[in-house]
């Protein structure tokens, strides 16, 4: 028999409950939902990224309309339940819809608290709870005027950061002496305040709001001390109250929230409550983790499994403001029976504090570096006795030895002649030997005596680990950002260890460097694949399954799953024959769109995957090769008309561009590489915003690099000037090879250069002639294996499986619509 289940409120808690319920007892309930908000279930906690513009509303929808349809659930959007009749077992909405229930779930969430001051109802005063609030804020932000956020807690700060991101001039008013005082101790609160202020957001603490002023609309906020802060938008984010009015009216037991037992059942056995409106074990909650636990318990109960009970656990707080890392969990108040361990690194803006009671962690506050938060919390949860690791506890998990987790073991096992510092050619034996012989104890001393890590700094992590291996626990290196959650190693260490240990396959890297997952993830596998291609061009067998689909099928995937194809047009030059061939291909395959790209060539969009090989075959016949518009590799070399035609041209910019493109195409690089050659400083090829650019001048060629014009806009740096075309090509190739050998995967040249330093790069590829030649030769060698047109390879049958679906036997031919 199906039970009639009615749910009031369609927030995050009941949404999750339904997922569990549909899995545990599919078809057992006839489900109707009433939601006061006129939309489907969405991820409320992601409203801040929507406000700041990092996500769109569509991206945060949890259950779309189709989901309700698929599960046969009736969702009344925009219907607020105004009465529950417990005798008749019905609910009624404000639009007059009534529904009978066997079981009722109340999940009405919270209502934002409005401070009782004059003017709090003026137009322009908002709260921060749902999408309507966000939309109203965005509308106000268009005016780019002034905003005041009242409340320096999690919500208030996220709102402030979002509005600031949208170009508003924002002031945060907080009544307490420090921000987020419920989650952070004063020290962390101050760091947070500095980080917020650094974004240009004003913060006033101990600010007591007296009134909101304005005539017909908000004009400002008046504080108790008489200060007036002008504003055309005021957001109140001072706290929330469980939304209990409906339950109270229905006669259910209500305290701060709707009182439920540990099975989420209210004082009426046929009615459950969950989410922020529920009070369980005397507590109400405002973060989703415990609400999701409630959802699990409620779903189990509704599915007839009464064994699951709600148990309290502390939920960590994090702030979703890009660039600010904080983490807090548990109890961090001072006390006689408590001890604390504190680590501060003022220059790095790091503060860590762990609170102990009877040798057990009971609270954690981290600011600036939060990677170990989960580990500390786990120690709390397991009540682990930490006396053994007390001395190193604050440095986090990676310093606690222990078998698997220890990246030191790998470093310790390196042979003495393994090269650690590539820039200065320093090997392991030299470093460890000098540390012992000279009694060195700090990184700076090691740098001074050995030069290791003294140039680009990318081997710093390894050098520090060597110090730790040599000096033991006396030395604690700073943490390195791991490549991804599959490993403890950072990109630079992985690159160096691949070379030092001669690792030549992805499984070998994962085995020797003790990867934590069986076969990596979509972050580390493409990176490892690149590192191996770059380091062992002749030996490594490219692993296509570790490449993003674009590089696997040599075309760009589009939002509808079709592909785009961009053939090379060397230096942007084309001909009637080429254009005719493209026109024929477009007609033959009914390609829906043809576009001239920003890279001086032609893009054909909307091609079905199955058609790709045939399209390439036709293009290949006309002499085209792949333009690698999809690749982390050489993209385009834009040129201008130069001395061929232009009255100002000083050199053959078109010719040089074509030469470079023909020399360098096919090479894989850490991130895409775009180039341009302009025939004179008027710079019509826009060479000064490219990864590598050349400006021709009367006396030769000015080589530029490290420009960008995408997510960041950055003019190039001048590398230097050379006299001949040949020299220009040698320098550019050496530069790109140095980049190929040293940069982290997905790091464009401008970011790499910022890390390594323009001077260091100039030294290696311009001044040091021998080194330049070595880079050049290494590039030429790797091109022997890389310069194969992937299109013609596939036309001749390579990777056939990629382009053909499997067939379903026994159903006859199925036509794809």
């Amino acid at each position, binding site marked *: 028999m199906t039970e009639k289940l009615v749910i009031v409120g369609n927030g995050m808690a009941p949404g999750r409950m339904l997922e569990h319920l549909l899995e545990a007892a599919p078809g057992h309930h006839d489900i109707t939902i009433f939601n006061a908000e006129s939309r489907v279930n969405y991820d409320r906690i992601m409203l801040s990224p929507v406000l700041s513009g990092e996500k769109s509303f569509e991206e945060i929808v949890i259950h779309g309309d189709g989901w309700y349809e698929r599960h046969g659930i009736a969702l009344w959007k925009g219907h607020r339940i105004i009465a529950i009749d417990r005798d008749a077992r019905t609910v009624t909405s404000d639009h007059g819809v009534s529904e009978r229930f066997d079981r009722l779930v109340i999940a009405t969430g919270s209502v934002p608290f409005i401070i009782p001051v004059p003017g709090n109802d003026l137009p322009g005063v908002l709260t921060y709870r749902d999408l309507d609030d966000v939309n109203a804020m965005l509308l106000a932000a268009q005016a780019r005027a002034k905003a005041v956020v009242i409340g320096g807690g999690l919500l208030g700060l996220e709102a402030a950061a979002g509005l600031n991101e949208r170009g508003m001039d924002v002031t945060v008013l907080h009544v307490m002496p420090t921000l987020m005082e419920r989650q952070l101790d004063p020290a962390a609160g101050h760091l947070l305040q500095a980080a917020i202020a650094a974004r240009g957001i004003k913060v006033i603490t101990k600010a007591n709001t007296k009134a909101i002023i304005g005539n017909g609309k908000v004009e400002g906020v008046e504080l108790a001390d008489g200060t007036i802060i002008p504003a055309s938008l005021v957001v109140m984010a001072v706290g929330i109250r469980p939304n209990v009015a409906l339950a109270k009216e229905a006669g259910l037991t209500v305290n701060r929230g709707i009182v439920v037992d540990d099975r989420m059942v209210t004082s009426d056995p046929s009615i459950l409550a969950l989410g922020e409106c529920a009070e369980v074990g005397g507590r109400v909650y405002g973060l989703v983790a415990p609400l999701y636990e409630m959802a699990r318990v409620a779903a189990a109960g509704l599915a007839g499994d009464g064994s699951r009970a709600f148990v309290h656990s502390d939920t960590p707080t994090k702030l979703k403001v890009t660039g600010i890392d904080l983490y807090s969990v548990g109890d961090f108040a001072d006390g006689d029976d408590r001890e604390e361990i504190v680590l501060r690194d003022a220059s790095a803006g790091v503060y860590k504090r762990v609170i102990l009671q009877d040798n057990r962690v009971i609270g954690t506050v981290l600011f600036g570096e939060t990677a170990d938060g989960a580990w500390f919390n786990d120690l709390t949860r397991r009540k682990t006795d930490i006396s053994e690791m007390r001395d190193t506890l604050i440095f986090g998990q990676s310093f606690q030895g222990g078998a698997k987790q220890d990246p030191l073991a790998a470093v310790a096992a390196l042979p003495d002649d393994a090269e650690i510092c590539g820039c200065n050619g320093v090997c392991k034996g030299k470093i460890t030997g000098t540390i012992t012989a000279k009694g060195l104890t700090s990184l700076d001393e090691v740098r001074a005596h050995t030069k290791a890590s003294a140039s680009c700094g990318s081997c710093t992590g390894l050098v520090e680990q060597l110090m730790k291996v040599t000096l033991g626990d006396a030395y604690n290196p700073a943490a390195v950002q791991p490549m991804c959650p599959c490993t403890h190693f950072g990109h630079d260490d992985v690159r160096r260890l691949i070379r030092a240990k001669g690792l030549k396959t992805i499984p070998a890297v994962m085995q020797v460097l003790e990867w934590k997952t*069986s076969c990596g993830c979509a972050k580390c596998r493409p990176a490892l694949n690149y590192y191996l291609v770059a380091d062992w061009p002749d030996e490594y067998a490219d692993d296509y399954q570790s490449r993003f689909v674009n590089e696997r099928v040599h075309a760009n995937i589009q939002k509808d799953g079709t592909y785009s194809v961009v053939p090379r047009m060397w230096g942007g030059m084309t001909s009637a024959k080429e254009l005719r061939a493209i026109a024929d291909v477009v007609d033959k395959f009914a390609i829906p769109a043809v576009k001239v790209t920003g890279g001086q060539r032609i893009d054909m969009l909307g091609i079905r995957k199955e058609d790709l090989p045939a399209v390439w075959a036709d293009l290949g016949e006309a002499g085209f090769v792949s333009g690698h518009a999809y690749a982390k590799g050489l993209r385009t070399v834009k040129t201008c008309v130069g001395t061929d035609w232009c009255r100002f041209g000083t050199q053959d910019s078109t010719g040089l561009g074509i030469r470079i493109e023909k020399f360098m195409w096919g090479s894989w690089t850490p991130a895409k590489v775009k180039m341009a050659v302009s025939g004179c400083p008027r710079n019509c090829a826009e060479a000064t915003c490219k990864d590598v650019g050349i400006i021709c001048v009367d006396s030769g060629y000015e080589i530029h690099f490290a420009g960008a014009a995408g997510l960041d806009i950055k003019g190039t740096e001048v590398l230097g000037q050379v006299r001949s075309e040949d020299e220009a090509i040698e320098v550019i190739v050496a530069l790109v090879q140095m980049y190929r050998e040293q940069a982290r995967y997905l790091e464009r040249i401008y970011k790499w250069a910022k890390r390594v330093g323009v001077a260091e790069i100039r030294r290696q590829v311009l001044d040091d002639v021998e080194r330049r030649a070595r880079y050049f030769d290494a590039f030429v060698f790797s091109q022997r294996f890389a310069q194969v047109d992937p299109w013609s390879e596939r036309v001749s049958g390579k990777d056939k499986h990629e382009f053909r679906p*499997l*067939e379903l036997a026994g159903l006859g031919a199925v036509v794809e619509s």
Partner: protein
Amino acid sequence: MDWFDIGTIDDIPARGARCVTTPEGRIGVFRTADDQIFAIEDHCPHKGGPLSQGIVHGASVTCPLHNWVISLETGMAEGADSGTVRTIAVRLDGRRIAIGRESHLLAAE
């Protein structure tokens, strides 16, 4: 449940996928590093991306459009994202792969 042969495990590269077109839509058939086979709707719960074109790792696939990670076992999005894609029954007979389809779905055609 009716079973339909779609080929052998060797037709799919390890840590890869192929797709099959059925009257109910496209299905992605995945082979993991340890030769497990999974089938799910080829339609990402986020914005409909073709999951069969993604990178396969462990028993998950990362969608090629915006990098959601979908569990091949449950069809559920992993990590901070949420959403579910339909999983489809598959069977390995030796090296042959068959996918299961509900008979009433066929009847409804």
